[in-house]
């Protein structure tokens, strides 16, 4: 099994664990056995969706158009799963409500057509609306790691209590906007559905307090359920992992991948877990694991652990610094271009300035006036050459003018324009990994003063590398 597959396996085991907790949660959230099967199917789908999001490597898309082009299918799938989740939960709720109502009056239904309850329609539409709201506002994953590492059960309990409380308040807003929406468009929706699938609806009022209360409970359930599943996935994924520093020759229960391999992994979650572990081991008061890093290999007496670990860390830091520097250079280039564009867009009309130039040149030639400025560049260009230059600048001007005109059209810049600092924002969004690695290396270097008996760190320390990222960020701030 390759190292990437092992990393993927580590994640998958955690996803399965999170799925099991999520399934158990459905029983806690008062779901009956009958409805457990469809709900579990939805939870499974939702879990796969979240897991996929965690495993995905973040990409930078310069424009919204590109983002839509590359992610439309995936986004639509995720959205569809959210909607499906909402539909199943609301269907379950509407069945509870229908079961409670023993007497059904059907004055508004025709004899020949199937008569459905409008309450069910309201519930299902509400489910779709609330789950769409959740998709739009929160999305399935949160990439920020927890600051402190608590026990999984304590973390889960604390998160679930918070979610339960906050969902009750958060559901109020979407519920009332939905009710407004239904009051305005409900009859049209009913009409189209009746026409499409040949059913009648038993009328129900939106202004029924019990109905509103039921919808609020259902909205809270949906929000709570989705948030809880996301939270459980986050908790399971971010469970602190102790990676072995050296490869063990003996089969053991520990993680089957070294810290160095995990740091070099393509999967960002595993890389983050490894960098967090590096920081923990470096800053811990227990020196046992650090001694493995400072140890010499047997046989050979080579500082293999430290060399490989520091090389991987420095490579990651250098790669990040390069990306950052490139982004900064891009900003500098854009600034320069804008500045030159501003020069072109002077208050004097272009035609007038060119005519003035020609007039001054003719005047100087007639009276034998030479350019005496020391800093001025002496041009040997002929008039024909200057004319060509003028043409080039004219073309440039027209190009910039056309580009500006097109980008200023409503919606064009929104979809096809790249924001000034979007690339640098993208790189700075996830600095946790690099900061942990940087801190971890720094702590290791500091601890090596007392713990590194063979001087392996002293011999190979490259002091400037840790400063690169700091310098890059300083440039950015200034």
């Amino acid at each position: 099994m390759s190292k990437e597959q092992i990393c993927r396996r580590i994640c998958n085991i955690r996803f399965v664990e999170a799925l099991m907790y999520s399934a158990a949660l459905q029983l806690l959230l008062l779901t009956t056995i009958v409805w457990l099967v469809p709900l579990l199917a939805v939870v499974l789908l939702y879990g796969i969706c979240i897991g996929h999001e965690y495993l995905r490597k973040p990409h930078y898309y310069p424009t919204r158009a590109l983002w839509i082009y590359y992610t439309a299918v995936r986004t639509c799938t995720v959205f569809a799963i959210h909607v499906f989740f909402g539909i199943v939960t609301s269907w379950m709720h509407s069945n509870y409500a229908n079961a409670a109502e023993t007497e059904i009056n059907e004055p508004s239904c025709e004899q020949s057509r199937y008569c459905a309850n409008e309450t069910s329609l309201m519930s299902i539409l509400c489910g779709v609306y609330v789950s769409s709201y959740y998709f739009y506002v929160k999305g399935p994953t949160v990439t920020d790691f927890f600051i402190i590492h608590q026990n999984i059960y304590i973390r889960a309990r604390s998160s679930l209590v918070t979610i339960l409380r906050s969902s009750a308040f958060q559901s109020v807003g979407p519920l009332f906007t939905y009710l407004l929406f239904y009051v305005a468009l409900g009859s049209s929706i009913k009409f189209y559905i009746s026409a499409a699938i040949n059913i009648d609806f038993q009328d129900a009022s939106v202004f029924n307090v019990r109905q509103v209360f039921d919808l609020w409970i259902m909205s809270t359930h949906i929000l709570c359920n989705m948030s809880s599943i996301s939270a459980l996935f986050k908790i399971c994924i971010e469970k602190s992992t102790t990676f072995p520093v050296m490869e063990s020759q003996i089969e053991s229960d520990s993680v089957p991948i070294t810290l160095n391999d995990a740091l070099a992994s393509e999967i960002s979650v595993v890389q983050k877990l490894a960098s967090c572990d590096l920081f923990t081991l470096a800053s811990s008061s227990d020196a046992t694991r650090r001694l493995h890093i400072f140890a010499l290999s047997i046989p050979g007496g080579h500082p293999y652990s430290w060399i490989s670990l520091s090389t991987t860390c420095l490579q990651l830091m250098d790669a990040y610094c390069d990306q950052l520097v490139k982004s900064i250079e891009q900003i500098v280039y854009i600034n320069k271009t804008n500045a030159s564009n501003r020069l072109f867009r002077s208050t004097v009309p272009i035609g007038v300035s060119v005519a003035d130039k020609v007039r001054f040149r003719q005047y100087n030639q007639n009276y034998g006036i030479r350019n005496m400025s020391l800093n001025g560049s002496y041009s040997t260009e002929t008039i024909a050459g200057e004319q060509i230059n003028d043409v080039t600048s004219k073309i440039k001007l027209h190009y910039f003018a056309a580009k500006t005109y097109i980008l200023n059209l409503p919606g064009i810049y929104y979809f096809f324009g790249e924001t000034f600092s979007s690339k640098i924002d993208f790189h700075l969004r996830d600095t946790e990994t690099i900061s942990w690695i940087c801190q971890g290396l720094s702590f290791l270097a500091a601890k090596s003063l007392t713990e590194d008996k063979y001087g392996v760190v002293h011999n190979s320390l490259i002091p400037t590398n840790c400063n690169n990222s700091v310098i890059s960020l300083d440039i950015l701030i200034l």
Partner: protein
Amino acid sequence: MVSLRDFSSFPKPGEISLYEKDGQLCSLPAAEVDLTNFAAINLSAYPEINISRELHSHATTSHDENKTVLIQVYEPLIKQLTRTFIENGFEAALEKAANPESETNTVAVSIARFVLRVVNICKTVQYYYHPYRKDRGIFSISKFAQTRDWSRSFIRVMRWHPNIFKLAVAACDDSIRVYTDEKSTVVVLKVWLMHGKWNILQKCITSMEWRPLSHNELAVGCENGIIIWNITNVRTGKPITRYVNLTHRNHSPIISLEWDKAGMMLASASTSDSDILIWCPDSQRNDPLKRVGPPSSLLKFSPDGERLFTSTVGSVFRVWNTHDWLPERWTLPNGTIQSAAWSPCGGYLLFVTSEEPILYSLQFIEQQLFATASLAKQALPIADLSKIELSNQSDIGGQPQSLAWDSKGQHLAISFKDCSSIALFLTSVNKNMINIAPDCFIVGIGTTFPSYICFQEPYKDSSHSVLTIGWSSGVVQYFPFV
């Protein structure tokens, strides 16, 4: 257990304690000392600080005092109520509506009185179960702050940088002055925000902490949350200051904050929130340490970063293990924790309570070899701080106000609530026990009393600790142990 009676010498009237050399206290008559500067030997680099002199006008943060200078004008009731609601909240507006100054609609007054009665009944029930909620805002700060007479003190908080020569002093005008070894440069930190009118953001400073391993970041706990200052270019002339305001719902005023030893996490406690928040200031996120019960009042990270001590405004205090963030819960028979200090090794915690004049010690060193489950872990009293009567002057000792322990674990300073002296103890900590012996008393000039005490960590070549005392007169004294 040592007591204040075991001290061999007591302060003489009219003398000021200046420094301690080889275990001998050096005092001089007040007439021979420069009253504005207590600087003693080898302290030429230390800045002369007299906050009362530096404040041109003593502007306290109490709104009521500011209002006395304003002339009252006629306002219609609706306008009055709106203003009161915006400035002081719903209850104050309700009280105003229930007791109008002029003739108004009696129906509205009756409704307001009825609602006010209902609110008062609810509050009575709430205070029965949560008595600590009676004290809010400034009152709760005054009660639990480490500064004596916090609301009227010139010096609210002082804090030395752990790695370099920098002293931050928070004054009663809500400003912070940062002093370095370059006496000509003093950076003043103050934040004004424009929300309709100019408001002070950094109001009612209760705690400050320099970020470890960073020379220019200062976290400040105040009424409006946490403010993290970044001060650069101090030495090149014009300093550049930037700040970040960290806020969280229901987590203000901040009563205590602490950085961990690596400077990656910042813990904060508020008197209105039972949760302790652990912040990552770089990403401006936080994780709560959730607990049901009374809010927290004091936080202390152990120097080795292995434990976090948190006390509440009730009788409960906890010591969290920072590996798995599981708490060890302790209860006091009565009162609350007044002040606490960790030993340099992180193996001992000394604390004093609000009800007893006793110094307690808690041991956290793993020595379970001969321990049995039947022996419950207990806090041991190690010093009796009860008031003693002196023949020639006022009493010494009593209810302790705050503790300060130097980073070498050699000197422990204790200030008192009703006494103008500071008691100094000699301490030594080893793996199995802690020894404490009486040393001397420090007294100030006349009726001044110590508002705030803290130790400067030894830095560079200086090997001695310096106790820094902020007196109620606004003067800062440096008391070195040479």
